[in-house]
């Protein structure tokens, strides 16, 4: 297991470095000047701005400077937010995205797994068909549809929760968390059902039943662990997407999370903030994938053996 973790960590560092390199050069190749404003800035000021930020230097020198900044984890000031450094911007936004992402994950698991298990147990019945139809609708409806619907229904019409904003995080997390939870919960439900169906057809389940165990005990104690393997495989990228913040969710619910900074950095050509956001997203995806692989290996030891064989 130790070798497995070390090997995956080294791979992750190479991948992260490659992502940053590609992002940097793509940003520099993109048209548009980050400092240009609606009122045309006189050329002499624009030239000084470029010089101040080192954008007048050869691209390779700019690249090595940026990478050096990353090694020191000092990403410098953002072009767009002149009062804050990129480190500060990420430090302010990440906890919000993390909280919403965790809420979304909990909702997704709470909604998705019971529905998936129930569908598998009641397979090919009315309950199964209706629950899976609901899950399919959940997958088909994007968050920018579910979000405003929940915001208007539960926020404005029923007045149960604030429709949007981040003034009172104690309650503001609920609707965005639920929106994400419904979307990902639908995936989890379908994956759980598939996993459970496969597990329930295994010999050891038949043995358990033949020993006279109750169906609830068979499902919860024996089948569930194996049935969750596909869910755990999906959790890695799902958690990264959930925690990394979503521009759509943050716009719909007016949240001060990371997703908005990411999109604004792209449109404003804010290279330092863009690289910082990409690094955060990239590191999150790699980390959660690694954790998901470790969890999978624990849930299903065959995975670890196959990984070890592949490495050998």
């Amino acid at each position, binding site marked *: 297991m130790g070798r497995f973790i070390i090997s995956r960590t080294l791979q992750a560092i190479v991948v992260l470095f490659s992502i940053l390199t590609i992002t940097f050069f793509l940003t520099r190749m993109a048209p548009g000047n980050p400092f240009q404003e609606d009122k045309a800035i006189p050329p002499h000021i624009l030239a000084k701005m470029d010089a101040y930020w080192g954008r007048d230097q050869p691209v390779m020198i700019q690249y090595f400077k940026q990478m050096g900044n990353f090694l020191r984890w000092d990403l410098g000031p953002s072009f767009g937010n002149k009062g804050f450094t990129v480190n500060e911007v990420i430090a302010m936004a990440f906890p919000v995205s993390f909280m919403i992402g965790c809420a979304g994950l909990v909702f997704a698991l709470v909604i998705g797994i019971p529905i998936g298990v129930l569908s598998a147990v009641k397979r090919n019945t009315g309950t199964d068909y209706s629950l899976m139809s609901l899950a399919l609708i959940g997958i088909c409806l994007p968050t920018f549809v579910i979000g405003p619907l929940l915001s208007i229904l539960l926020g404005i019409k029923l007045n149960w929760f604030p429709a949007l904003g981040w003034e009172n995080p104690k309650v503001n997390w609920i609707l965005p968390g639920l929106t994400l939870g419904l979307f990902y919960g639908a995936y989890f439900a379908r994956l759980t059902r598939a996993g459970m169906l496969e597990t329930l057809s295994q010999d050891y389940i038949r043995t358990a039943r033949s020993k006279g165990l109750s169906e609830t005990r068979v499902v919860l104690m024996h089948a569930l662990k194996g049935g969750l393997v596909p869910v755990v495989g999906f959790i890695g990228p799902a958690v990264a997407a959930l925690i990394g913040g979503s521009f759509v969710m943050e716009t*719909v619910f007016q949240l001060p999370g990371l997703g908005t900074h990411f999109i604004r950095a792209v449109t404003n050509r804010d290279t330092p903030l863009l690289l910082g956001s990409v690094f955060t997203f990239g590191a999150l995806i790699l980390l959660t994938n690694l954790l998901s692989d470790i969890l999978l290996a624990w849930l299903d030891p065959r995975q670890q053996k196959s990984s070890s064989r592949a490495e050998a």
Partner: protein
Amino acid sequence: MRCSYTSFVPIIFLALCGCLVSCNKESRVDWAIRNKILLLGNGSEPKALDPHLVSSVGDSNILRSLFEGLVTYHPTDDSQNAPGVAERWESNEDYTVWTFYFRDNAKWSNGDPVTPRDFVYAYRRILSPDMLSPYASMLYFLKNGKQFNEGTLTDFSQVGVKALDDRTLECTLEQPTAFFPQVVKHTTWYPVHPATIEAFGKNDDGLDPMTMQFTLWQRPGNHVGNGAFKLKSWVINKSVVVEPNPNYWDADQVKLKEIRFYPIPSEFSEERAYRDGQVHYTYTMPPNMIDWYRKNDPKHLRLDPYLGVYYYKFNLNKPPLDNPKLRKALALAIDRQKIVENVTLGGQEPAYALSPPIKGLYQPPKIVEYDPDKARQLMAEAGYPNGEGLPRLELLFNTQDTHRAIAETIQDMWKKELGVTNIGLLNQEWKVYQSTLHEMKYEIARHAWIGDYVDPTTFLDMFRTGDSNNETGWSSPEYDQLLKDAALAPTAEARVQILQEAEKILLTELPIIPLYWYTRTTLVHPAMQHWEPLLLDNHPYKYVDLIAN
């Protein structure tokens, strides 16, 4: 089929949470009214809280609470001037030298007195080339201000601003400017607290502390301003909160206990926030909801005149757009009334000139009107009867639904009225669009301008030869001369006449097609008092109050 109750657990959980949360039914705006806290939607996140580093309307809205200029905005009529740091001011006979007399009790939020030297320091700072201020050109009114900003003059004592003593500031201008008190209300003319700038600008690299951009002085606790409010908190993408400044000279006038500025870039989210009772005021609103509010909730809807113009500009360096007859034909074939009635929907006024009318001050000449017959005739005279032979032209706009809808409508009008079928629509994202525009790589482009001060020259000056906003390749020595003559006009009436003459030239040669004059479409809570319609929408917050009705 047995029904399981498991699937109802999340719904029951949610309902319980909802019931717990909604026990307290007082809405956020009602709570805020009770506590005199004004909640304002404010467009996008501010770039900075430093008056020398910003240029957007949203940023100015915040800065107006934190700083005060020599002269300040009048609460009901922004063509009027209210005393700010200066309690009175006067000019010499030809309006080239202005003297501002400071009030005794003008103080910074830390209690220091506001002095003319602070203003001289601020003007030096914004004009310093190393400050990289995007809007320093607003101070080109000062004698030698442009030269100092461009670095061709390094001795600031030659720039036209001088502290005569502890209570008197003198500004010497490049040319006679009768409306100069209007100009100094703009955020770029705000002072900064020199000791704070110097303290936070200290560095080991030998750089001038005054022009250091990324210092901590803008943070809550460090920020020093001289406005009616002072900075309480700033959380990126969440809010900027200001509270009354006890050292403000007119602190007794301030009624609010707090103002919270929320950056809500999406007009749909902002409208939902308003409906949910989370803000008292929206920065803008979705055009497709205006009609609904008009019919169902008119007391919340405000359609105020706004000193801005939406227009298309031609690149005269690209034939055949150098042909004035073609430009005029394209301009006369547009039915502006249809655009404002069917596309923009916000009560905008069809624009027949560049500068909007300013009540009691300026009436622009009425030249560009919808006349399809004349347009067809001009098209034929230009050598393109029924649009035949006209090469393909690209119409550029930045990516936004309304701009696209306007462009499509005009594309259709040109097709129907003139037979022009080869107008391509090109949308670009904001930064790319700006570069394309400023580098003049376009053929026809949409543009808009909101006035910096209440005077027609805030629009007409853009089309002087060489002005950085001209960007059309159009140049008219006669137009330039008339603008110079207007500054020297002996009376206000004579000045207006000369400006009208200048605008006539612009509208005859048409390097631009004016389309509509803006309105400000917002939702305003009825509890907001003293939030009167203003042409520049620059509300002085010290008069604003919240009273439950």
